[in-house]
């Protein structure tokens, strides 16, 4: 056998040590550049674009902050936060999550407790949006969507999640929690007990209700009139109306479950000063007004001035506001695994 490629132990150790040394010196270089960099975990698409348009470019860039985005849906970003839990330094400074996910992140011990004293704009925050472990950024409510050309306006969830619609009822897979909640409210259940709605959902499925993988696939089905009704955030309905889809909304008589989208700071965020700067900028009135106009969500601060015509489309009347219901995050977090099991095996299976 040729000895040309014989490897001595010394050579192997030497090259290994050289590689290790270069790898160890890299983070130090990165750290030096990091102090003005904020890494933001967020959904892609419109949300990310509007964060740049309403927060980063006008409010943070002039102060020298450099914002880097980690774009993905919430589940993989949450999985990443969990995977980094034991690291002293994580890879993101703020993470955009729903109120439900923020609650779970806190339960899992990956969310930093917010020091509201460091946030100048927090004095204008609606108290309900002030979570100890995160801040509500925008909110909307779960409403009924229907195509007025194909059916009369339903009154609420019971009228919509009804087998009578056959395959003209659309259900969004990733909205399983809210769908189970809406079905529960339609069947005499409560915000803290979804059991009552299960039979209703099974009956709808048996009658031919279509299940779509994403919000976008649901919108596409509304557009092509494959379906006539379903349930979704009012803000999304506004966006789809803007996109020319023939859809109207009804605030359900059983109650309007709130959807809050917010931000948490991972406990091991490498740049906490940057994270606070981002969280403060996100509550600035101009940023909140921008999101209301561009995305159809309601501001979470009291000093944002939303144009009356926009407010009329995205907001809720006084009567409807009385029906707004915040979620029982503890109940949902505790039972989420069971909900998913039922949803996957019994409802979809």
């Amino acid at each position, binding site marked *: 056998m040729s*000895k*040309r*490629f*014989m*490897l*001595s132990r*010394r*050579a*192997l150790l*030497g*090259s*290994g040590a050289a*590689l290790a040394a270069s790898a160890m010196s890299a983070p130090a270089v990165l750290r030096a550049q990091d102090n003005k960099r904020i890494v933001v975990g967020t959904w892609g698409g419109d949300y990310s674009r509007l964060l740049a348009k309403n927060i980063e470019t006008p409010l943070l860039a002039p102060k020298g902050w450099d914002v880097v985005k980690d774009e993905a849906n919430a*589940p*993989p970003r*949450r*999985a990443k936060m*969990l995977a980094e839990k034991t690291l002293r330094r994580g890879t993101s400074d703020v993470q955009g999550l729903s109120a439900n996910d923020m609650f*779970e992140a806190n*339960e*899992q011990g990956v969310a930093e407790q917010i020091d509201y004293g460091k946030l100048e704009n927090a004095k204008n925050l609606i108290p309900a949006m002030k979570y100890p472990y995160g801040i509500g950024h925008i909110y909307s409510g779960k409403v009924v969507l229907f195509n007025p050309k194909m059916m009369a306006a339903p009154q609420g969830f019971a009228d919509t999640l009804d087998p009578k619609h056959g395959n003209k009822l659309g259900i969004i*897979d990733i909205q399983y929690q809210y769908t189970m909640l809406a079905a529960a409210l339609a069947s005499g259940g409560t915000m803290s007990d979804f059991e009552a709605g299960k039979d209703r959902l099974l009956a709808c499925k048996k009658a031919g209700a279509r*299940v*779509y*993988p994403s919000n976008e696939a649901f919108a*596409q089905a509304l557009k*092509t009139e*494959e379906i006539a009704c379903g349930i979704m955030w009012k803000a999304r309905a506004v966006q789809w109306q803007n996109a020319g889809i023939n859809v109207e909304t009804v605030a359900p008589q059983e109650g309007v479950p709130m959807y809050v989208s917010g931000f948490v700071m991972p406990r091991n965020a490498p740049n906490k000063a940057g994270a606070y700067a981002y969280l403060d900028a996100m509550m600035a009135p101009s940023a909140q007004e921008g999101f209301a106009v561009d995305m159809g969500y309601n501001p979470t601060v009291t000093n944002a001035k939303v144009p009356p015509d926009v407010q009329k489309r995205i907001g809720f009347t006084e009567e409807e506001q009385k029906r707004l219901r915040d979620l029982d995050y503890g109940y949902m*977090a*505790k*039972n*989420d*695994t*069971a909900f*998913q099991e039922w949803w*996957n*095996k019994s409802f*979809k*299976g």
Partner: protein
Amino acid sequence: MTDAALARGPVVERRRGEGWTAAALITPASIFVAFCLLAPIAILFRFSLNEFVPSKKLMVEALTVANYVKFFTDPYYTTILATTVRIAVLVTAVCLVLGFPLAYVVARTQSRFKHLLIISIVLPLFVGNAVRAAGWMTVFGNKGFFNATLMGLGVIDQPLEIMFTEKAVVIGIIAVNLPFMVLSLQSVIEGIDRSVEEAAFSLGAPPATMFRRVLWPLALPGVLAGTILTFVLAMNAYATPFLLGGPLFKMMAPLVYNQFTQQSNWPFGGAIAFILMTVTLGLTLMANVIIQRRAAR
């Protein structure tokens, strides 16, 4: 120079230099494989023996095979495994049937456009799976290209349900895997001397006999490589079943993803990943042994 001198200085010098060269050559790949493949697999296996607390969505350190037991005792999961194996076998068989004639033509053609033919086979691989699936979505939808054409021609009056069904997934995976089968077969068929086929014909063998007795046995290494490649890719398909199968159709790779990201259940996700890996490896080895034995006869 004496033999003794040869045995000392220069040789030792040269060997040390060569050692460094060899180290430089094999170290990066070895480190890459060790840290990026073996280490994560080992960690994943360890995770798969942990417990999961559903109320807090937390993994708790343990040493239990409960996750594996849960998989094999729940018909929901075993059905998904059976569906995955069935789809992979079906896709592999269709790819072989469709790919063999195409590979034969490409291998035997004398045309000066042969390279264009090969490029056109490889071309779909230039587009990622997710992008290709997105393309199929526009074709398969209720008002997509396929249904709109058939309805426009008056062939059907109600759109065919293709999108979010098993049919869409099978078509999508075949489209992804076919080039791998064709290329594996084409390279082997090209190496088979045309004269052996002519010899069979000159001895009076009809085309079917020539194929069965001459071409097929000689092309067997290519068939083996192509089927293994196609089967493994189909077993582990993620983007196509996820995007074209919709929420009601389940295969193993999307199930693994779902357990890790949606449910944060790493122990069970790890167990499913290991089961998928083991079943894929086992079936591949079994097919390999069977085909090799047949070839030896």
